[in-house]
């Protein structure tokens, strides 16, 4: 299969000698055509470095970057059919919205009539026809963001790179743009590579997510898989909220402090490990009957649900997410003793 973008054991080292910093360590990744792929990780994890390498602003120290199976590692950015939506938007302040959007086509030497047509079409795609003659400074943040998007889409790139494009927008606008971006991607069928540190953004928009940390690619998979089957503690912790409980695993059974036995995958590694359970999979019931004894701590009300803090017998703190009811009858008193169980198949054994 020919992938839209492929990175093969890509390394990037900045500086040399004892000052060398490895930004990207042997990352291999294959992104399919027409896919909405998200690189997710905290700042400094190397996701932006990888994106800049795909764009052509950085050359790999070793390894390759392939576009449709062709090695483009050393091709300059102006020769790659790949465009970027920058975090800072980087709109040209001396050009109107129309000229900004038409910039790429103009540099490619397309005839004016064709440019005008394409610009018109792309502007209507992002619903900015009315703003065509304004300068970028005269637009709101959200509008500038859409100009940046239109400018990157106008030359009809094979791959669109988005470097945290929504981080400067307020929450409501960000949600709108998430939907908008997904719609555009489906409509145009272009491969989107999206970089973000916002796990919720990654989960809602992506076909697949690549989780990165400290220059390594930790896990690649669809949002559900990343969320439900995190490979290690970092992924489990970074995406969503998770309870970590020490346990001893043997033959598909995890034994936790207090003697409670939980069913886990039969191929799970044996020995002392950490198990992970999402707060929404924690059930609170009566004591006994194989449940883990726990003491109720503080409850934090969030509207649709509450976070109930619990302390297990060995002192491990966990959180349970409880749906709110209309009457408030289910509220647990602080200090009361309860039994905790986990939803079927929700217990994950982490390797580290």
């Amino acid at each position: 299969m020919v992938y839209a973008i492929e990175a093969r054991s890509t390394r990037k080292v900045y500086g040399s000698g004892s000052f060398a910093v490895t930004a990207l360590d042997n990352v291999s990744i294959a992104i399919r055509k027409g896919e909405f792929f998200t690189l997710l990780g905290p700042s400094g994890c190397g996701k932006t470095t990888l994106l800049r390498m795909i764009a052509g602003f950085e050359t790999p120290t070793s390894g390759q970057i392939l576009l449709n199976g062709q090695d483009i590692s050393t091709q300059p950015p102006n020769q790659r059919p790949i465009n970027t939506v920058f975090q800072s938007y980087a709109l040209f302040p001396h050009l109107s919205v129309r000229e900004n959007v038409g910039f790429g086509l103009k540099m490619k030497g397309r005839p004016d009539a064709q440019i005008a047509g394409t610009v018109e079409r792309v502007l209507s795609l992002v619903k900015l026809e009315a703003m065509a003659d304004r300068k970028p400074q005269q637009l709101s943040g959200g509008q500038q963001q859409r100009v940046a998007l239109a400018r990157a889409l106008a030359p009809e790139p094979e791959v669109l790179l988005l470097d945290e494009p929504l981080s400067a927008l307020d929450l409501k606008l960000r949600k709108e743009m998430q939907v908008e971006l997904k719609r555009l991607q489906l409509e145009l069928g272009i491969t989107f590579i999206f970089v973000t540190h916002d796990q919720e953004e990654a989960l809602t928009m992506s076909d697949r997510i690549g989780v990165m940390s400290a220059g390594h690619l930790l896990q690649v998979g669809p949002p559900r898989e990343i969320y439900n089957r995190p490979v290690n503690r970092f992924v489990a912790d970074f995406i969503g909220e998770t309870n970590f409980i020490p346990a001893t695993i043997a033959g598909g059974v995890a034994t936790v402090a207090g003697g409670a036995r939980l069913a886990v995958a039969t191929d799970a590694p044996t020995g002392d490990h950490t198990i992970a359970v999402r707060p929404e999979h924690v059930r609170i019931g009566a004591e006994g009957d194989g449940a883990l004894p726990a003491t109720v701590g503080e409850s934090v009300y969030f509207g649709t649900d509450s976070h109930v803090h619990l302390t297990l017998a060995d002192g491990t703190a966990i959180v349970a997410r409880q749906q709110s009811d209309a009457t408030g009858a289910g509220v647990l008193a602080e200090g009361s003793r309860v039994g905790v169980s986990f939803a079927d198949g929700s217990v994950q054994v982490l390797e580290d």
Partner: protein
Amino acid sequence: MSKAEDKAARTETRSTWLLSAPALVLLLFAASGPLIIMLVYSFLTPGKYGNVIWEFSPDAWIGTILSRDIFDGTYSLADAHLTIFWRSVQLSLLTTLFTFLVGFPTAWFIATRTARTRALLLFLITIPFWTNLLIRTIAINQIIRNEGLLNTALLSLGVIDEPLVIIYTNVAVFIGMTYVYLPLMVLPLFAAIDRFDMRLLEAAYDLYASRWQVLRRVILPIVKPGVIAGSILVFIPALGAYVTPRILGGGRNMMIGNFIELQFGQGRNWPLGAALSVLLLVIVTVALMFYVRAATRSDSNG
């Protein structure tokens, strides 16, 4: 508007005027005063010993572009004057262009250094201002004259067989003016480039622009205010340059400045000198108006 507001507004207007008064008075006497004197003198009759006789005469103005034959009294175009004007404009334009070509990469280099290096480099740029212009120009003279540093070096290296004749030519004046006015180009360019958002370069490269297109389509239009300021700061003093053409151009390669000086000195024709000064001012003003307008218009067209 209520009475109190009205009064407050009036008080504010009054104090604004009062506060600006010293500057306004200074401007009136130091700037407009001499200009008015020049304008008045240009319409008077020259005196025998270099003063003016209070008698109206348009001769000075006619004399700026026409010369009167002393035998038959007919007028013809004053070739010598026009040559001087043309040389001045030409040399000033060339100086402006060349200081830009040298100054732009210099300013770019400085603006892209770290804060500490940048401060040091800017300091170095201003060092020439510490020395008197006359001394700096004489130094250039010492370098480019026939037996000067440049020729001695080139001769002893065997690059040339006989000295290059640079001194007392237009080239010498051009070299001198470029050297003297370069900092005036670099500083405003630096200020403009310093504000330039370097991230735009990546955006332009990403959108298929070549290096040349990035310069032409993105950098230059955005730093244009700096280019305009630098050009004005170089062109105007270059056009009126006096010391540099005097020392490096010898007597033959006069510029307007020297010519005007001549009228007030040996020429003993103050009205002609005054008329030439006013004419120079008008030329500069008109040239600037056209330049600034053309520059701003092309900006809106991208």
